[in-house]
Structure formats: structure tokens, C-alpha cells
């Protein structure tokens, strides 16, 4: 299947550094900040953003993990898939939560994530950080922090691969629906 690299390892590193700076700039700072990654690849991305924030300002931002399986609106179309445990130990009441995901597409995952998030408390603010925004939104959702905007066709797939999960850092555009 033909594929085109849209982000290399270096691109991903630089984009995350910039996004971490933006998160700190918009806070301002990391006070009350909680990063919540969406399973699977949002979780290591959230951890990397937290590491960047530690490097820049020596503040530890708590990192959580959220599985949106319980909140999806497309269960009829999805195959039954295993759930992974949601781990949000930080108190979300009054927190500034940044949801982190790899690819923003229809926006439905993010809607589900927001539903899941409010079961854990009432954040002061919820923002969204994504490594790749590929367009084609089906809901009124936008990202606050974007690694890269990539115009795509509907029959293309954006695949983000990360060291922690896939052994390699890259984002590729694949022609056709991926199996």
C-alpha cells in the first residue's frame, strides 16, 4: 500500500516541544494543569509533553490515561475491542485539563472523551492537543494545540507510530482504508 511520510522522528520531537511551550504560554504556566492521554497513542504523547514541561519549567504535570470505549457513539459500527483501564488519579475539580490524542479526524473520539472526563470531576477548562489534524470534522470540535495540519482525502488514513507502542516515531499518510 502506498504511503507517504508526513512527520519524521525529528518533526515529532520539535512539534511536541512547541506544543509544550504553547501549553505553558496559554496557561499561563503549569498551575492546575493535568494532561490526559487517550488510549492508545495519546498516552505516550501526554507523557512526552509532561517531560517537555518538566524540562522547561521544572513542574510536574500529572498525566492520566482515558479509554473512550465506554463512551463511544459508534458501537454499532465498531468491532468489540478490549478496553484498557482508565487511570486518572489527579483531582480534576477546577483543573485545566489538556486532552491529548494522536490524530484529530471526525471529532467523535474527543466528544466521547469529554463525556468520560466529566465523570471524574468538573475541570475549570478543557483543551485539546493533537499531533496531527487531518480535517473532516463531523462535530463542532477544534484543537487548541496542533503538531501539524495535514489536508487529507477521506479515503486516506493517517497512521501515527510511536516508539513506546510501535518501536518507531513517525506519521504517515496511507492510501486507502487500512485493515
Amino acid at each position, binding site marked *: 500500500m502506498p504511503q507517504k511520510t508526513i512527520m519524521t522522528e525529528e518533526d515529532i520531537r520539535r512539534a511536541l516541544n512547541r506544543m509544550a511551550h504553547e501549553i505553558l504560554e496559554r496557561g499561563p504556566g503549569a498551575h492546575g494543569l493535568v494532561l490526559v492521554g487517550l488510549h492508545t497513542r495519546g498516552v505516550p504523547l501526554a507523557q512526552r509533553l509532561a517531560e517537555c514541561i518538566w524540562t522547561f519549567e521544572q513542574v510536574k504535570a500529572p498525566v492520566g490515561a482515558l479509554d473512550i470505549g*465506554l*463512551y463511544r457513539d459508534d458501537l454499532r459500527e465498531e*468491532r*468489540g*475491542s*478490549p478496553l*484498557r*483501564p482508565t487511570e486518572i488519579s489527579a483531582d480534576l475539580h477546577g483543573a485545566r485539563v489538556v486532552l491529548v490524542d494522536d490524530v484529530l479526524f471526525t471529532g467523535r473520539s474527543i466528544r466521547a472523551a469529554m463525556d468520560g472526563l466529566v*465523570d471524574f470531576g468538573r475541570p475549570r477548562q478543557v483543551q485539546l492537543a493533537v499531533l496531527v489534524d487531518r480535517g473532516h470534522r463531523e462535530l463542532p470540535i477544534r484543537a487548541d494545540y496542533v503538531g501539524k495540519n495535514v489536508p487529507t482525502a477521506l479515503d486516506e488514513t493517517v497512521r501515527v507510530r510511536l516508539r513506546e507502542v510501535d518501536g518507531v516515531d513517525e506519521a504517515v499518510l496511507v492510501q486507502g482504508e487500512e485493515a
Partner: protein
Amino acid sequence: MQLEQAAATGWPEQGKGLAFQEGRRRHVLDLDDFSRAEMEMVLSTTDAMREVLGREIKKAPTLRGKSVMTVFYEPSTRTRVSFEQAAKILSADVVNLSVQASSVTKGESLLDTLRTLEALRADVVVIRHPHAGAPYLLARHLQRVSVINAGDGAHAHPTQALLDLYTIRQHQGSPEGAKVVILGDVTHSRVARSNLWGLGLMGAHVVLCGPPTLIPWELVEERGRRPDSIGTGHVEVETRIERALDGADVVMVLRLQHERQEAGLLPSLREYARLYQLNEERLALAKPKALVLHPGPMNEGVEISPGVAHGAQSVVQEQVTNGVAIRMALLYLLLTRHPRRE
């Protein structure tokens, strides 16, 4: 018997990958048609459900608009309530049909009852029935409903076996190679039978222990003849309790039904307790951190001493909590599967 039934239902072949994920699994009737990968999938989904159970607000909208109906032709408290709790936490609607034991009728009317539930648009029917095979009959004839077996005669109780496996895994990791003693009235125990499949598939070393009159010898021999169908584990019988418990990692105590004595299989309950009760002294023969499981309700002073039943090694209460999580996982996996392709 169960193999003939499986053949008649046109069952997917055992051990062929993730039937849940591929949308091929519509029912949970026993664990004999689960692959190891599918079992792992259920167990890891259960981890996520445990997290939901620990939340301050334990409710997720996942199964909104789905109906779960429980039909129990035998008395039960914990299994039925556990299913109800699991379904409600995931926002499904629950209808409990209480069937008096006296109104148990023959197969035809059982099927009619269940056809009515299907017409009432049940998505899942959870059934317990005194006759082995009843859930298979329904699975064969109902077109739209998923059937979960909550115990059929002395045949199977797959959700109990799954929660037992999960509890073992939670404390000791994979049961691969672990020595698991199933103690008591094995012959009449559907819990033991389903556990044999589950533990065998996960590679445990199962020792059946009990009075020779309550050991299903034919089952052990049958398994011996078909070694490839039971995973990597193996099963043996040891009627002397001290030898069975020696070095055990897990002791699963079965409930002794009082009727067994009347049937002439036991001289007396006192005699049974003297020879086969799990007490502190005997438990000391197992490994120091060996787990004690019991499917409940316990006859304290008969198959288990009160000290062991409520002792540090007993995980009976955790089994109950894990049972809810297992049933949440199964409902989730069954109701979120791919639309059927047949």
C-alpha cells in the same frame, strides 16, 4: 454431550482467535469454545471494568438502550444480582423474570418463554436452568438474542469460572503452571467443569480432590483422550486431601449440596468435614500465599472452616466484586460486536 450440542449449534471452531473481535461470538455458553487469546481479551477488558467499579460515580452510558433479561429457573442471589448490577452500571435496562422452581416445565415451554423475551426485544438473555444444555437449546433457536449461561444443571457456569480465573490472575499473575486444587463435590459442580476448561486453556495444573463417589472419573479420562482440546494444562485426581494440597497455589473449595448425603454418596456431613474440610491445618500444607476461593454460598463448618473462610488467604469477597466486572466485560463485548454477517 456438550460436544454434540456444540456441533449442533454450528459452533465456531474452538481456539480460532478472537471470536469477540471478529463479531463471531454471539453467546457465552461455556468456556470450551474460547481461545486463549479471547480469554485474555475478556480478562483485560475486566481490568478496565474494575476501574469503573472503583469510581465515585460508577456509571457509564455504554449500553444505553440495550435490554438485559435474566431468567432464573433455579434460586440464586449473587449471580443474578451480579448480572443486574453489571448491566445497570453500563446503563442497560434490566428485566428480571422470576420463575418459580415449581413452574419449571419441559423444553417446549422454556423455548416459548424465551421466544417471548425475544419478541419483547431483549438483547441479552441470562439464563440459569436445572437442566444441562438448556442455554444451548435457546442459542440454537433464538435468532436475535445473545444467550449467557448463568449455570445449567451440573454442566457449566462460565462466568463463575472467568471470575475465578480473573481473581487468580489478579493475585498471582498468569495461572500457567500453577497448581490449582478443586476440592469437594466435583461430580455435581458446574463451577468445577467450566473451571477445568478455563484453567486448562490457561495452562494450569489442576488437581481434583474429593471423595471417590464425587469425582467424575469419566471426565478426566475424556480429557486425557483429547489432549489438544484443553490447552496446555493438565488434570489429575488425588483423593487424599493432604497430598492434593501439598504445594498448591490455589484451593478452590466447592459447595457441598446437602442432598448428596441423602443420595447415599456420603456417609454423613460430619464424616465429610472430617476428611475433606479445608481448615487451617490443611491449608498450611499449601504454599504460604495460596489463595482460597469459594463460589458461595459457603457452608461454614462443612466444606470450609470459618477460620479459613474469613482468613487472610480467602478472596471470597473479591470474587464477588470481580464477578460484576467480568459480567460487565462480557456484556460490553457481546453487545458492541460487529453486526452479524450470516
